């Protein structure tokens, strides 16, 4: 490996064959280079008389931002793609954690550069903190084929493996239709939407796209007064009701009866989770004995109401 100074123009950045990182912010690195210079030169390889970047994308992009015209680099003499890539891989492995999509890119490159599948499973998955099964390898390879826009969202939302795996069950068109629902939602809600939609589709033998094109969904999406988050939430509820009709209907009946009881806001009556147990719970808070007495009287009044007895028949 030789160290030399290269003009930035000499590095062909269009060639991304060894690139595994796409989403990063440069601010801190720019500050570091301004303060102490570029301490760790990037690694380049000579291919068809062009220098291409093997490792150090962030460093090179920071240098470009800083308006530098040249930078020190290491030039590898390795000509084999796999060995060249492994140099970059091990350099990164020793110094930082990989994000989920970076792991996907690494595994996809290993496969592309001819590494044996069994070896990837047994040697590289554990290095990436992924349980060593072929099925996990296949999942990550599927992630590497996702559309760039989706990859950006996955990265920005820091989506966990379980949700990203759900996305892999959808085709590109379906994934595109799902983006407006995923963008405003948090991690848990995203997962609920992805899971419920897929399970309704599988249970009822209906393509997800058909559910997403149903009148109910289109009406919500076309509603002018709703924010993107409100739309995503309404669709999430719509899917939940379709996925769990009996449970949803039980919840609705319970809420209806509770509403009719006109409880003060300080008193909360709750069923057991999923109505699995026979008991209900009542919660209220009080600051003095007068408040306690008022709440108890209110509760006593409730017991004589028909709607209150009806709650127990819901069991």
């Amino acid at each position, binding site marked *: 490996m030789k160290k030399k100074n290269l003009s930035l123009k000499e590095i062909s950045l269009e060639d991304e064959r060894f690139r595994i990182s796409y989403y990063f912010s440069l601010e801190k690195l720019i500050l570091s280079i301004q303060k102490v210079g570029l301490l760790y030169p990037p690694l380049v390889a000579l291919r068809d008389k062009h220098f291409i970047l093997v490792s150090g994308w962030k460093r090179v992009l920071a240098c470009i931002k800083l308006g530098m015209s040249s930078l020190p680099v290491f030039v590898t003499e390795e000509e084999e793609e796999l060995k060249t890539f492994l140099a970059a891989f091990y350099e990164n492995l020793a110094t930082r954690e990989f994000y989920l999509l970076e792991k996907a890119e690494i595994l996809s490159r290993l496969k592309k550069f001819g590494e044996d599948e069994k070896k990837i499973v047994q040697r590289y998955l554990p290095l990436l903190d992924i349980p060593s099964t072929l099925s996990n390898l296949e999942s990550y390879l599927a992630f590497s084929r996702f559309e760039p826009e989706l990859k950006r969202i996955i990265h920005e939302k820091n989506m966990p493996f379980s949700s990203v795996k759900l996305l892999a069950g959808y085709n590109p068109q379906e994934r595109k239709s799902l983006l407006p629902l995923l963008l405003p939602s948090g991690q848990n809600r995203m997962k609920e939407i992805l899971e419920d939609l897929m399970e309704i589709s599988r249970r009822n033998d209906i393509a997800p796209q058909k559910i997403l094109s149903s009148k109910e969904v289109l009406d919500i999406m076309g509603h002018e007064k709703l924010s993107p988050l409100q739309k995503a939430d309404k669709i999430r509820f719509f899917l939940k009701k379709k996925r769990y009709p009996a449970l949803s209907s*039980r919840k609705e009946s319970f809420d209806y009866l509770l509403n009719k009881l006109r409880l003060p806001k300080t008193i909360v009556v709750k069923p057991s989770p999923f109505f699995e147990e026979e008991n209900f719970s009542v919660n209220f808070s009080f600051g003095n004995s007068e408040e306690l007495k008022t709440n108890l009287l209110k509760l006593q009044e409730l017991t004589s109401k028909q709607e209150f007895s009806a709650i127990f028949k819901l069991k």
Partner: protein
Amino acid sequence: MSKSEYFPQKIYVEKKSFDFPLTKRILKNVGPVPREVIDDPQEVLDDIKATKDIIGEGKKYLLITRQKGEFVKPCPCTPGYLGCNYFILNIDLNCPLDCSYCILQHYLTNPLITVHVNLEDLWRQLDIFLHRKRLRTIRVGTGELGDSLALDHITGNSLHLVSYFRKKRNAIFELKTKTVNIKNILKIEPAPNVVIAWSLNSSRIAHDEEKGAPSVEERIDAARRVSETGFRIGFHFDPIIRHPDWEKGYEEVIKKLLETVDPARIAWISLGSLRFPASLKAIIEERFPKTKIIYDEFIKGKDGKLRYFKPLRLELYKKIVGFIRAWGGEEIPLYFCMESEDIWREAMGWVPKGEENLEAYLSFPLG
């Protein structure tokens, strides 16, 4: 895997297990199956992990090893629901059948079909265990972490187990199977405290979800043959699964069962609806992409496992209990596996006063 007797593609014998009589018996019974003596099963497991379907791949191989821990353990049951005070014997682990809903896919870390061969330790541990419980009638079985008879043509364990338990009158011993591997059972003299039991389901579930298992009709016929030799028999409708026309499906099987076998020979029938830990769902989706059974209305129960929303469970149980009673099984002891007291009350009309009460109820037919 065919529905005929199971033979592994290869047998791995852990070096320290080579000299046990059961090892020699297995190696003799399997005939020309390739075999290899290994120091550590981990070598084999590493190779299997690099295959697409680890669980399916593991079923192709038989591992002969020793039980290094306890053979006898209380059935883990599940927190928050009523247990039945059952004890399990871990002789064989894993099962050559490949049921989509099988909990072992999630439960066992070793995917190989595994036989523990240090039976002397088993008998010794059992002697101590049964002596400690001498004032109770204990129910013990081998069918929790594997099928009790699926390997019996290779191991011949049923012969030894029945002979052992015949002399232990404070135990009711159960062999639980989905197979018709009853050659050994038909050869031995029945013991009043030994129950041979079958897991049953609707024909549709058996066909679609119980890969490698004989049909329900074949199982019922095997039960008839065994009961006619004098053994008492048991049945487990577990897992009961909602599917299109489930009422008809379960009623047909129950009718067939009670028309084929003498209800007086039935020691018990247990009922349990489909339930599974959330992590099993991903395994089922991956291994059985066509199945729809996991997309019904499951909620997280008190034990954290997914189970049908209670009104749906209750509907299943009430109907099935009704079918059993209506088709001639009025006197058969019925019990739920891992259910709550209110389900017992509403579907059975009574609630056991704890696990020992249930144990006594199920031991009663023994006299």
